[in-house]
């Protein structure tokens, strides 16, 4: 009983979700069936969303579910559509591809590790747990306010010169939304039926 109570359950769940994410990531690389690959990728990304929820970042976790897991859905659909004729098609990986993938993967890992160890405060475990407070359901309000122009987290900035630049992300937000609107209209334009050509043909 006391032993169970002494366990840091937060770490246990972190390990659980992290292992799930890593395990399914390995499964993605190891499987040769493209639909199973997409399915494992879904589970891997879902486990990452679990990590976000564990950290109290509910908005980011939901975003992860909606965008990444939902985006994989489309990948899955394409997987089904492209492989449905030759059923359960296997994608054999050649030796050269393994070497290339290993080089890219190891170099990325080295880069990330180097970046991680360069932060001094991450190198040793924290001892001041009492003074820490978990982010607790307060995550979406500052994000929304920051997108509309107010960085709540920076309001207590004592330096007034610095406070000037804290007016949020309204401008990038608007630019991104305009960009997406243009993309949407462009996609609709390209996908529509080309009536002009047909009328020309008919007029002849």
């Amino acid at each position: 009983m006391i032993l169970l109570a002494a366990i840091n359950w937060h770490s246990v769940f972190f390990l659980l979700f992290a292992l799930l994410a890593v395990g399914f990531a390995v499964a993605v690389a190891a499987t040769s069936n493209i639909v199973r690959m997409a399915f494992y990728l879904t589970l891997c990304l879902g486990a990452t969303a679990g990590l976000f929820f564990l950290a109290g970042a509910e908005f980011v976790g939901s975003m992860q579910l909606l965008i990444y897991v939902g985006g994989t859905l489309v990948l899955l659909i394409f997987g089904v559509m492209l492989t449905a004729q030759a059923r359960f098609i296997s994608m054999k990986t050649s030796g050269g591809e393994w070497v290339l993938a290993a080089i890219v993967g190891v170099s990325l890992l080295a880069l990330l590790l180097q970046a991680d160890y360069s932060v001094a405060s991450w190198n040793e475990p924290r001892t001041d747990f009492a003074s820490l407070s978990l982010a607790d359901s307060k995550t979406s309000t500052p994000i929304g306010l920051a997108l509309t122009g107010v960085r709540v987290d920076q309001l207590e900035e004592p330096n007034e010169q610095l406070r000037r630049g804290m007016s949020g992300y309204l401008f990038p937000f608007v630019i991104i939304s305009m960009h997406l609107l243009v993309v949407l209209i462009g996609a609709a334009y390209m996908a529509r039926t080309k009536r002009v050509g047909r009328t020309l043909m008919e007029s002849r």
Partner: protein
Amino acid sequence: VAQFFNQILHRFFTSVGPDFWLGYCLAAAVHIGLLLNVVAVGALVFIWMERKIAGRIQDRLGPTRVGGKFGWLQTLADGIKLIAKEDITPKDADPLLFKLAPYVSFAASFTAYLALPFANGWVAQEVNVAVFFIVAVLGLEVFGVILAGYASGSKWSLFGGMREAAQVVSYEVPIGLCIVVPVMIVGSMNLVTIGEAQAGLFTNWLIFHDPFTFLVFFVYFTCAVASVNRAPFDLAEAESELVAGFHTEYSGLRWSFFFMAEYGSMFLVSGLAAILFFGGWNGPIPIFRVLGWAYEQGVTGWTVTGYIAQLAGLLNFLLKTVLFVTVMMWVRWTLPRLRIDQVMTTCLKYCVPLAAICFVGAMVWKLNGWWSIQDYAPQTFGRMFADVREEWVLREGSGFRVQGSDARGQESAGGSQEAALGTQYPVLSTQYSEIVVPSYVGISGATNHGPSLDCATPESSVDVSPQETTR
């Protein structure tokens, strides 16, 4: 009573809460058990209801014998039959995905219940972005269907799965646009807050807020029916064309998991409609609020009368939700199935533009503060949006509280939300003014009273016409 229970709990478990593992596990088990009952037993009841309603609509009686007078144990008998059936995996199937697909569907449908409140504060996990979470998780249910369609190794299943994919991906757009409208009016994505903002007379329900919200509810309901794959949008199973669509090859209990997921999702989108547009647990007439039994927001502590009021709220919510589920069944047994191109036309040519127009219209309506039926109803029972939102802002913003302004923030009970923001974050209101004023030159910090070129002084920026923003 509560003290007595607390003493017992205290004696055996020393403390109940996240700090203590057993209490935490017990609380989690109770929540999960209750929700599982809602999904599983709810599905039993709804399948029986569907049969009775289908029977009556088709001038039949429906089930009459099993379990007595109304055949109300028919589903249980079916369940026993399903358990006894052989569990078949076709030769051509992908065995792993074929076996997993029903659970994926059910898990997605069940997970969304995590954030669905059943009464004021009665929710398994009060998620700050509950609406968003539910929409995100509900979209994953289609995974199971597509996997089932692919893994069955049957052309009927594959057709069904692909149709479902096209349909759900399309209908996520209008449903998202519809859900944004109530979120925008209340100013919160927390479902408890949205429900509580509609407390009082039925005139406070968001569907009666303005003509656009009235319209957008019907768009939402249409899209909800489509997104949970119910007739007339049930192209994924389309018995008359595709044998049984994506679950052609399934048998036994695995097959029934798809149905539990379907009925679970039906209940969920109906509950979402009840909370977003019909006040959730707040009735047409606030009896318990008039009696003074209902919990006031911010008051902690347990009372018997408050508990009764909560139970009545739960009943109220369930009634509304079941009503919407019944309407879905009514629609199913009345309308013929659409063709796939008609489904797409309904979504892209009617639902999306309508939802977009309603979104813009509701926004303009709210910004201008045009009339609402709420203005003409007696206000004694209900509470203004601003009050509920203010409490929410105080609660949510407490993590970013500016030192020394606590006392003022607590006292401004009847003021507007803008004023609450002003007292809560003295700097915040001036930051707003900096953005509103196009040519801001100086820094109008709260402490900066020196001569500056700024045209909006901190004093003028705080009272940005609080009367206008009260609503």
